[in-house]
């Protein structure tokens, strides 16, 4: 085999803006042999940066491979690190001007307004890939442990892959019709497997989570024959817990104020343990104690302190119940 690894960054979608400029969206393609094609998508939301860093780390790893063992890329890798280009450049979660959540615009259509056109273009580019990983970074309010979220409609095919992604949690959720307009749902229901990764927090990067995911992605690529069997990879050491709607407990704020966590994210907590308090900047009183309802794992923890009555502060996965 004499596959030659080549790398190029190219524009895959372009559209005219009202005054002079064009909006170009770029991807980087690493081409090797005739083996399977895989893709990583990030930055659908302009305030989620973890996936951008993952793409950088993957590109750095592939650059090194190009220098040392160019024959080991048996397939091809496409990185789409910054789909919501304008949102990322202007710190806007949605698509600027259109005030649209790009991940509610799929499968899109090629003749319509920008959000639909972009969605359709992305579907065209990604369809037929052996695996797409769509990386999200929660939002600016909540911090999440590295996890895969899987719609139960597709769990038979996706769970075995997700188990090998070196992540800490697989969360199986019910089929919500509103989520039918996501990239992952559109790809999965048209036969292209897509895993949704959620990790970290909006507007920040968590390098250790990113490296953990990079190791998992590379390992799955190797199993799929994108990388040669003899390639040396970073070690994968994480085994996921399995959560579903029966063993995840939500802690919503009883009152408005400032939530100050006392427990650490991604730790075991006991039933009744104090996870944090809600306080007021106007007085010295504690307005509300926030306690764990079960023995379990604190896998979601509020990062942004101000809460309204009802705001989510934490999620705990019970150690008992659920699917294993």
């Amino acid at each position, binding site marked *: 085999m004499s596959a030659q690894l080549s790398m190029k960054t190219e524009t895959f979608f372009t559209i005219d803006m009202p005054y002079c400029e064009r*909006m170009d969206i770029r991807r980087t393609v690493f081409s090797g042999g005739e083996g399977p094609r895989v893709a990583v998508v990030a930055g659908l939301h302009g305030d989620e940066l973890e996936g951008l860093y993952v793409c950088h780390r993957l590109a750095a790893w592939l650059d090194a491979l190009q220098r040392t063992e160019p024959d080991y890329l048996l397939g091809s890798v496409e990185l789409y690190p910054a789909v919501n280009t304008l949102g990322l450049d202007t710190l806007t979660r949605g698509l600027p001007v259109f005030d649209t959540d790009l991940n*509610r615009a799929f499968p899109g259509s090629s003749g319509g307004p920008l959000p639909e056109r972009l969605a359709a273009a992305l579907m065209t580019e990604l369809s037929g890939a052996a695996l797409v990983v769509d990386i999200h970074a929660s939002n600016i309010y909540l911090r999440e442990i590295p996890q895969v979220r899987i719609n139960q409609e597709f769990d038979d095919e996706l769970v075995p892959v997700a188990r090998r992604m070196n992540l800490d949690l697989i969360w199986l959720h019910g089929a919500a019709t509103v989520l039918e307009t996501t990239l992952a749902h559109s790809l999965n229901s048209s036969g292209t497997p897509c895993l949704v990764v959620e990790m970290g927090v909006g507007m920040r990067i968590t390098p250790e989570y990113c490296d953990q995911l990079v190791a998992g992605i590379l390992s799955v690529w190797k199993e799929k024959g994108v990388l040669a069997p003899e390639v040396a990879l970073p070690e994968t050491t994480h085994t996921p817990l399995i959560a579903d709607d029966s063993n995840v407990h939500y802690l919503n704020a009883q009152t*408005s*104020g400032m939530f100050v966590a006392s427990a650490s994210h991604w730790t075991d907590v006991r039933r009744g343990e104090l996870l944090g308090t809600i306080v007021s900047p*106007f007085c010295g009183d504690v307005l509300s104690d926030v306690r764990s309802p079960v023995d379990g794992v604190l896998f979601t923890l509020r990062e942004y302190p101000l809460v*309204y*009555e009802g705001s989510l502060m934490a999620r705990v996965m019970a150690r008992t119940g659920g699917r294993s």
Partner: protein
Amino acid sequence: MMRNLLCMTAPVREGFDIPCHEIGPKSSHPAVALVAGLHGDEINGVFILSRMADFLNSVENGKYPELRLARRVLIIPAVNVLGVNLRTRSWPFDKTDLNRMFPGSTIGETTQRIAYAVLEATKRSDYRIDIHTASADFEEVPQVRLYGPSDAERATSILFGLPAVMERSLSPVFTTTLMSSWKVWPGQSFVLRVGQAGTVQLEHCQRVFRALVSFLGRIGVLEGVQIAVEDEEICCFDKKSAFRVFAEKAGTFVSDRQVGRWVRAGQELGYIYDSFGGNVIEKVVAPVAGMLSGMRRHPLLFEGDLILRVNRKG
């Protein structure tokens, strides 16, 4: 009578309320529920319903001796109270869309609690009406929107006397809207789409105000209404009747045409200029003969933006 649908706390300011009007004879549930301002920038609806509350309160106070409110009417001029004050479409704190939070819940996110309170107050009404506008970029002719309607809703939609009734299927994307949650309850549900966001369009508002008064008269909730017969016919349009024009080129779009007018196929309706060079790069023409039912109002166009919609008469 004014009452608070919901009172909630806020992180640092004092609590906030969502007030509503309840007007007319007491009953276990209102006969008619009128809702607007789920989106904080859709001011036409807020204005129409606050004016409606003033009018019905005047009826109750005897200012119009020939009129009598026979049944109770609930009016929520604005659900997204803070959004109206801050001029934002979405819920200002977490930027979520209140009209994607239904049926809501008493223990979930703030917006879900608001949605729950709105649904509880309105779901048992015989007639439920949610007033919206298009975005701030687009203007819609005042119209009744039906989503997967029953025959009864189709028949009732004519009673508003608005120039257009637009029928759409209830897409799964709309599962979490107020309209979808209403539909699981007995009774009839309507969306009115009126003009564009971010402004009060007096002519549209007056027209819809009259439409609501006629409607209340025709369903027997407001007795003594003299129904003026509009000289314009009411057109019912299904999805197939809609012809949309999208921008082939980006630029600056200018048009002085008014929505609701009838246009000929090929009639010039506006121009796209090169925003830098200033030359006309595209003439925008009507794709078919019909009613100009919606029109772009924000001048700056991305390639692919919706410019206008013409509905062909069935």
